[in-house]
């Protein structure tokens, strides 16, 4: 596939480096997590983002810490693109006290409110109203911030899609809804579960702009997100962007992926790989040198390894943490015997 070259202007060399770096971080983090899970070192449900890097990165390239995002069960990529530290992330997956959530959230609830990452979410469709709320604060407090809601094709059939978008639309809130259409919700094809041809087609039902982009092409995502984020910042209301993409791994770690075809898999993982295409593009456009790219890859690999070491060496939370932070304040005796 050819990268949409007309976009080179929109992306500075510095931004390009940041984008490639974040995409590498996501890919290498996820590949490493895949290994660690295979070795039985990580507990719980893990949903990997590898293959979809261009979406999180192309969108978050327009955001800073004051902007918010809501994420999904497949949240590592959004975290990284929004600036979360790998050490704290990996430690969270290990359930360690040094994790971003002190080990209490795990992969499905990983969050970093300081960075504007309002949390992965174990509830499909949970993000729509939450993003809308962050957008409401931005509007009421006139902060100029934008809220982005990442959601899957499966989530597009949940009632919160309808309620969250309608609310953002009538209140004209600075929210960007980003569909990550990877073709499946668990083992259920998008085409079966959704009566629409494209998720973006549903934007019309809310009188907001809807756009389909190639979600494997980070420059295309970058371009569409730029328009949507600008629109939002200018007070022109929400938009919906649908990114057609593919998840390289199974729904969660352990999924045999019977529902995929090997041709699709091969073409997505080998030919259409978002990192490879972007790398080629950067070299061709002379935005980043090969030497720099190599160096970035090396240092990201190191950072991921460091995060594993950090996580492994970190302490576990202790009994005293169990009932901490349920409330800010709560004065009542213990209940039951524990």
């Amino acid at each position: 596939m050819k990268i949409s070259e007309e976009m080179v202007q929109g992306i500075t060399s510095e931004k390009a480096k940041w984008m490639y770096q974040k995409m590498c971080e996501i890919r290498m983090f996820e590949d490493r997590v895949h290994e660690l899970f295979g070795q039985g070192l990580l507990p719980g449900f893990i949903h990997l983002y590898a293959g979809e890097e261009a979406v999180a990165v192309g969108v978050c390239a327009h955001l800073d810490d004051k902007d918010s995002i809501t994420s999904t069960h497949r949240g590592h990529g959004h975290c990284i693109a929004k600036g979360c530290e790998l050490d704290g992330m990996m430690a969270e997956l290990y359930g360690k006290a040094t994790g971003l959530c002190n080990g209490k959230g795990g992969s499905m609830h990983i969050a970093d409110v300081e960075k504007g990452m309002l949390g992965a979410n174990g509830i499909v469709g949970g993000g729509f109203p939450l993003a809308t709320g962050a957008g409401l604060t931005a509007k009421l407090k006139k902060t100029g911030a934008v809220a982005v809601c990442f959601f899957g094709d499966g989530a597009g059939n949940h009632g919160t899609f309808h309620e969250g978008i309608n609310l953002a639309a009538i209140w004209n809130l600075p929210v960007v809804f980003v569909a990550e259409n990877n073709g499946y919700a668990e083992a259920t094809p998008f085409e079966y579960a959704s009566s629409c041809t494209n998720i973006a087609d549903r934007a019309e039902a809310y009188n907001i702009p809807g756009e389909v982009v190639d979600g494997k092409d980070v420059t295309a995502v970058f371009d569409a997100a730029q328009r949507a984020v600008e629109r939002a910042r200018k007070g022109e209301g929400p938009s919906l962007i649908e990114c057609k993409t593919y998840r390289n791994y199974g729904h969660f770690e352990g999924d045999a992926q019977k529902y995929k075809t090997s041709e699709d898999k091969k073409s997505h993982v080998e030919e259409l790989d978002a990192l490879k295409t972007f790398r080629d593009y950067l070299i061709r456009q002379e935005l980043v040198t090969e030497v720099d790219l190599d160096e970035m890859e090396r240092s990201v690999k190191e950072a991921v390894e460091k995060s594993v070491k950090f996580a492994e060496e970190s302490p576990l939370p202790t009994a005293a943490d169990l009932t901490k932070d349920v409330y800010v304040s709560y004065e009542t005796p213990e209940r039951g015997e524990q």
Partner: protein
Amino acid sequence: MTRMITFSQAINEALQLAMRKDENVILMGEDVAGGAEVDHLQDEEAWGGVMGVTAGLVQEFGRDRILDTPISEAGYIGAAVTTAATGMRPVAELMFNDFIGSCLDEVMNQGAKLRYMFGGKAKVPLTIRTMHGAGFRAAAQHSQSLYGMFTAIPGIKVVVPSTPYDAKGLLLAAIEDDDPVVFFEDKTLYNVKGEVPEGYYTIPLGQGEIKRPGSDLTIVGIGKQVQTALTAAEQLVKKGIEAEVVDPRSLSPLDESIILDSIMKTNRLIIVDEANPRCSIATDISAMAADKGFDYLDAPIKMITAPHCPVPFSPALEDIYLPTPDKILKVVSEMIEDDSIVKL
């Protein structure tokens, strides 16, 4: 200084004071103003809430702070959660508590758990006001008392006031509170009057009150049933029985010691609650007492509740669905083994 206002006015006044005090306080809900974007209603409301509880506020605070919402409970309650987490202090109205069916996820899995799941790195200063209670002939889907469901959820605080005074002070405390609080308003209490001071005051969550002291038995009432208990207690005086009536006021946190102290004195416990009887606040308080207060108790713990059935529409049925002073007298008579009590 005996200003008498209604339960409804007390709530309205609390909202007004909270909004004056903190500009981050906003109201959200269906028709909390009403008539949004209707030309002739720009600075005025059409309704001010389905029962008029929020009437007049839009005149003072404008439509930027009193937000009418579509019929999208998941949407706007969910939005309220992050509006709270990102710096506002929203008071969202869930018109009837029965509508929690449309937005339980936003309350139970998002609002209640955010802080814990994020390792304490977020707070959700959200108040949800909601109507509950039978007796209004509003039938099965508009008459439930679901505070037990919320009390069961870690991360949520629950308040059920029984008087205008308590309603005002507790609502101000709820709005000040940095945790999500669900504030229950019994729709049949709205017109009940009581003494309420004018200024700003709060009643701490987790602090019950003895509404009537007594030494012979303890009656814990929930919400409006505090009044039922008080009526029964007055009648018991004629038989020389002094019932202590305890109003927990908030169910989560629950003031366990006020109940335990009372039964330490009276050795008998009755709980009056109009919710359905299974896995309820009545069973919660009973179980707490059967554990921590067992040694004080001289008699079985009795719960006077609704039966295990939906709220019927017909007034003929709804009236017998609810607890009454007579039902309390009957139970007290069995407890104290004196049949003449029922004939008071």
